[in-house]
């Protein structure tokens, strides 16, 4: 992957998660209003953006931001799935459904799983290249 591609994916990740953060903060599209989660998603976005702040020539540092950022996104998706599952289970036990479509925060789950492929890619790049 050449320097320009890494930059592209870093910007892509950063913007995507910044958008998801704002989405969660205001509860806009298919999401509940959850300011704390928004902050955490914002941190994920920051991981990508700090990657852009690294010198262009420092490829390995940029890859590491891509690596960790994507892994973190993956973790967030799993987290969200677990939370949703627990809420559903609780609803089941007290015989009233506590879930709404918004509570799922589908945009987060989908984005996280989608971007996790970047993790595998970045990992392979780091392991096979002598940076």
């Amino acid at each position: 992957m050449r320097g320009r591609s890494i930059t592209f994916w870093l910007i892509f990740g950063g913007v995507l998660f910044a958008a998801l953060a704002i989405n969660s903060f205001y509860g806009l599209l298919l999401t509940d209003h959850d300011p704390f989660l928004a902050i955490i998603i914002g941190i994920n976005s920051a991981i990508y953006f700090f990657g852009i702040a690294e010198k262009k020539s420092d490829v390995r540092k940029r890859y590491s931001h891509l690596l960790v950022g994507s892994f973190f996104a993956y973790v967030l998706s799993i987290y969200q799935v677990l939370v949703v599952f627990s809420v559903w289970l609780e609803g089941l036990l007290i015989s009233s459904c506590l879930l709404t479509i918004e509570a799922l925060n589908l945009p987060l789950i989908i984005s996280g799983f989608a971007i996790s492929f970047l993790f595998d890619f970045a990992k392979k790049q780091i392991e096979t290249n002598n940076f």
Partner: protein
Amino acid sequence: MENHRDGIESRKSTIALLGNPNVGKTSIFNALTGSRQIVANWPGVTVEKRAGVMKHHNHTVDVIDLPGTYTLGATSLDEKIARDFLVNEKPGVAMVIGDAVNLERSLYLLLQVLELRGDVVLAVNAVDEARKAGFEIDRNELSKQLGIPVVVTSAVTGEGIEELKNTLVKSTKSGSHVHYLFSDEVEAHLRDLSERIRGNSSLAGIDERWLSIKLLERDDEVQKITGITLDYDFSVEIAETRYKYIKRILSTSVKGKEKIGWNFSEAIDHVMTHRFLGILIFLAVMYIIFQLTFTISGPLSIMIEELLGGLGRALGGLIGIDWLRSLVVEGIIGGVGAVLVFVPNIFILFLALGILEETGYLPRAAFVIDRIMYAMKLSGRSFISMLLGFGCNVSSIMSTRSISEPKERIVTILVSPFISCSARLPVYVLIAGTFFGARAGVVIFFLYVLSIVITVLSALLINKLFFKGEPSTLIMELPRYRKPRLSSIILYTWNKGRHFLEKAGTIILGASVVIWVLSYFPSEGTGSFAAMIGKSLEPLFIPLGYTWEMITSLVFGIAAKEVIVSSLTTFFGNPSVTGTSLGVIRTLITPEVALSFLVFVLLYVPCMPTLAVIKNETGSYKYVFFSVFYSLAVAYIVALIVRLVGGLL
């Protein structure tokens, strides 16, 4: 190299495992023993002892996992335990587990073991990672140079484990014991000292050359048992000789060139310990863990509550005798049940901690917040333990085992009770809800902030009181990141969780029975012993304005803080309605008294399981007494201040 006849008998059927921390010793131990292992304590101390049994081709051998150490000096408790076991118990085989990627350091420990005894086996672990990094270990050459069997293994892929088991089982008592030579001057001293020691019959069981080397290194323990103290100190030279020898060995046994540039761990660390992102990521990880714990344990706790409720009803229907029914249903099931409801909470927190530990992230987290902790004269490691306190103080105190500095450990243990555990939350919700309605959330937040403030201040105070305000030392290794193995995590969580259940469970059971007796006899409610206790203590609490019912529930709260809720509802509310019908209490006390009561609940005496664990982990009652009186004093003073200030607002 010389051969040195060793006429000392060894017990054949025990294998002792040694190795640096983080080399995968535990994984190898698990691979050898499977689930046939027991986790206990080394006698008299709070260091974990893992013992198991290895069955291989009709052989049955005991395996002991000694604490991970870098040397066999006697400067730390871990080293002392490992060394004492080798010297006193004389296991049949001593296996040193080394790290293929950091062989130099691992061999330093190996040499120290070889100085002490024969019948040593070297297992070079993580050989798969070494290959990835570009090394190849020539085990035959290594074996030749060291004069002992060498096996290369990978606990992760399983490579070499079979061969290791074969080697361990076949390890014959050769009696030969190879060692290397120091400089002429040192060797001369060693000869002299060995002469002197040979005459001492009480030291007959210990290799005299080893004792001599230790004397030249000015080892405290050895100086004590031999009665010889020297003027000169050769420790630096001896250490350098060892490393020189190691370098020579490695030059022929390790082939390949290290890849320049980053490996996987370094790449991750660039972000994880980043100047700015490091702390942000840490906060994010903490948030995720806590949120997950509370959300997942929610439904699980409900399930447990229903199960217990059902059990209570079933048993209640079966028992005809009134007092027995009450004892079983309200006393035992009610009392123990209150704690069992928290079990999912605790187990999940331990699980999270286990994952953080297995992956290798924990030292990074400690590294990132260390500067802040240093201001409290603690270190990053304590922070992790204290975080567990938000779940349950018992688990946070139990987790202090991994803090290596004894002073820091004690301070962390003593301030842990001030961290607002989840058992106090129901009390907050009940009282704050009754008195402050919509503002209850703000009040509870205030309580958590107060908890942190008092914790920090107490840390400074206790450090000054007991340890003259000296900060702890930090020498912490950052091991490579590794993929966590499910089996290890489950074993870890189960061990820790089971320990918690044993400790907390037994005490709560006893306490529940006692509380039941006190509140049932001579007549339930206002005529009981409990009420008499409460009424007699009332004068002490006049400045605070608590009623005898509140005081009695505080007394009961010493068993377990969530009991306060059930006590209060017994006295004030309708027991069959949950929580909210405490309305009558609003006529008895004012809001600022209620707030002061909450503060008191937050700060006063640690619950009994916590006290038991404090005694266990510190090994003395002095700290238990201190904890009780200090927390009572702090609770009273702060609660009083809150009441007075509240009254003005």
